[in-house]
């Protein structure tokens, strides 16, 4: 057990499973255990997760598969089995539920936990309970995770990433300023490449740079994000761990290896993204009334188009057709460097896709086909059956 002066007084944690999808696959198929494993869809897809052996060779998430296989030709590519991951995620969630009611899942394999006030209940401080959580995950599920423990969400998330895999990192209040000094601002969750560029424009690369700005100037320059940056620079984050934070939207996007204006190629992306969004919506029993298409042009400016449907949908075919119509409306503005598809204004799936389209009598047939192929994909893997346009 590690030592830290504030170890037993900190209670906001972030739990992040280690190479989650790959770990589930290795657990379920011991032959894979000592081999580099990449989870992802087909030769033309991208890496969804790489195990730590593959990571040694430089394979990273979101990397195009052909590039990953160039770096690590001996890797075994396994198509994702979402249902297995969902099952494992549920089991972990059940263990976390025993620790605290305040859990905020970020995805299948990571979550924030607020353990304030639980010491009396468990008879042990949060740090001890968290250590026993990862031990139980290992013993009962054969899966490992890393814990970050701190005094707010921002630092807890940063901490969980410090010592992966199987890490347990602590950032105390006392050491926070020293810890942040000189660290790059891209460490902040939500500051992507574009955010970095706009911060760099005004000379902000590190937290130390950020500290030199006063609050008003930051707000003026970056709006509400500016105020948040001012607090983060001081290691302050007042967001609460909110249990069951309702999902507001489901979206997927992809950045191209090379900018493209090829409509056929883009059409294939729209379909694959629509299918991923639909898979997510179906897994969560949700449907959306609004379909959004996002395009980033080569000059980094973003075009967003959205449309409200008369009734909500979780059907990939409808999401695809709607997004495609939006794409056609945008006109010839390529080449693009990124495309994204999403749904929002979410409702429970019971009220979704219940009325047909007079002008498109085939639509209902396509919905039935999709439901049938969903069953096949559930049984034999997500790539067991594909639309021709998925191969574009």
């Amino acid at each position, binding site marked *: 057990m590690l030592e830290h002066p504030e170890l037993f007084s900190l209670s906001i944690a972030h739990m992040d499973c280690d190479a989650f999808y790959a770990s589930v696959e290795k657990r379920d198929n011991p032959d894979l255990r000592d081999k580099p494993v990449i989870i992802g869809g087909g030769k033309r897809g991208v890496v969804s997760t790489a195990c730590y052996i593959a990571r040694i060779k430089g394979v990273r998430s979101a990397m195009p598969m052909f590039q990953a296989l160039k770096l690590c030709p001996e890797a075994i590519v396994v198509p994702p089995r979402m249902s297995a991951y969902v099952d494992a995620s549920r089991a972990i969630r059940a263990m976390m539920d025993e620790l605290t009611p305040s859990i905020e899942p970020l995805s299948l394999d990571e979550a924030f936990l607020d353990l304030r006030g639980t010491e009396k209940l468990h008879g042990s401080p949060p740090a001890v309970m968290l250590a026993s959580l990862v031990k139980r995950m290992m013993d009962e599920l054969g899966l490992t995770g890393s814990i970050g423990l701190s005094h707010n969400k921002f630092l807890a998330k940063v901490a969980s990433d410090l010592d992966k895999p199987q890490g347990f990192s602590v950032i105390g209040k006392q050491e926070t300023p020293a810890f942040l000094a000189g660290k790059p601002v891209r460490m902040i969750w939500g500051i992507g490449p574009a955010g970095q560029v706009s911060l760099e424009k005004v000379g902000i690369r590190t937290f130390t740079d950020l500290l030199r700005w006063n609050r008003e100037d930051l707000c003026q320059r970056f709006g509400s994000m500016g105020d948040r940056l001012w607090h983060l620079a001081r290691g302050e984050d007042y967001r609460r761990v909110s249990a069951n934070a309702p999902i507001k939207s489901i979206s997927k996007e992809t950045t191209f290896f090379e900018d493209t204006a090829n409509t056929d190629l883009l059409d294939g992306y729209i379909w694959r993204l629509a299918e991923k969004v639909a898979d997510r919506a179906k897994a969560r029993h949700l449907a959306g009334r609004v379909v959004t298409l996002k395009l980033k042009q080569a000059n980094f400016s973003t075009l967003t188009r959205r449309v409200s*449907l*008369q009734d909500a949908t979780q059907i990939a075919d409808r999401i695809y057709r709607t997004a495609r*119509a939006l794409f056609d409306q945008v006109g010839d503005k390529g080449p693009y460097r990124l495309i994204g598809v999403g749904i929002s204004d979410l409702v429970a799936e019971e009220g979704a896709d*219940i009325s*047909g389209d*007079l002008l498109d009598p085939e639509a209902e047939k396509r919905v039935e086909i999709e439901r049938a192929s969903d069953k096949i994909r559930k049984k034999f893997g997500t790539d067991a059956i594909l639309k021709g346009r998925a191969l574009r």
Partner: protein
Amino acid sequence: MKISIERAALLKAVSQAQSVVERRNTIPILANVLIEAEGDAVSFRATDLDIEVVDKTLAQVERAGATTVSAVMLHEIVRKLPDGALVSLTDDGASGRLAVEAGRSNFSLATLPKEDFPVMATSEYASNFSARAADLRRLFDKSKFAISTEETRYYLNGVYMHVADSDGGKVLRCVATDGHRLARIDSGLPDGAGDMPGVIVPRKTVGELRKLLDDDDMQIAVSVSETKIRFATPEITLTSKVIDGTFPDYTRVIPTGNTRKLEVDAADFAQAVDRVATVSSERSRAVKLSLDEDRLILSVNAPDSGAAEEELAVAYNDERLEIGFNAKYLLEIASQVDRENAVFMFNSSGDPTLMREGNDTSAIYVVMPMRV
């Protein structure tokens, strides 16, 4: 320019103008109405670049001329003036202001040069004919509720007006649909309309047109080309671009083999639908119709909020049938029926249903069921 005009005449002209003007536009001149005075008449012209309306009315013109002022502001002022007031509009051409005077009220409004005002290009019309206001009103009033608001299918954002073959020969037909319901309304073909090209009249134009159609016997001069449509009364001329797109082949959508017939008093039916739908909090409120020998049970089951059921005496003698619809769609089509009973023709619970008034096939509605 200097004119005197009755408040009532001015209000009518200006209110038509201000409703065409787009509330949020980035081109300042488009917020203005162009006032042109000549002879013994003054015309008020407004446009959003897709629709142009010109209202010509009699006035006492002391000095001919033209200027433009904010349509919304002029409308607000005139609206607030007392009934029967005589309003004078004076523009000295130099100050860049229009003086509006009535009794003891004086206003001075900023103007923009008349030369900047975009006047819609005149065009050749392929077809010119005259139609009764009452006939046009029926064609558009009964179809407009089905116009789609979905922008991805822009060709559905209007009413498709065209010449069609009906049992009794050629008719003037209006069709609107959003993919969930469809309205098809026929009217006798006016003389000279036979070679009219089919056009999609945009939603906003349909709304503006309605203001020309209050007087049943008024003859409306209609001119149609491939790209524009014009409706004119002696005072008002409404010119609009039509939607540049192809209206889908709606004839495939209209069921011809539906044999299960339900006849019901439309008002009773609408009230019952409205009552049972109250318990559903969903936006797309599904109402289930359960049909059995001369009996209709309307029901809503919303697990979160409650359930409701109501029974109606109807004429139905076919097999039992259960079918669900969006309550709003049912209410809208039922409210189109005003003389006889509503007649529904069903096939199965998954197929489009047809509704008409009695045996009148000059107005038919199709509605897509929902899974319930």
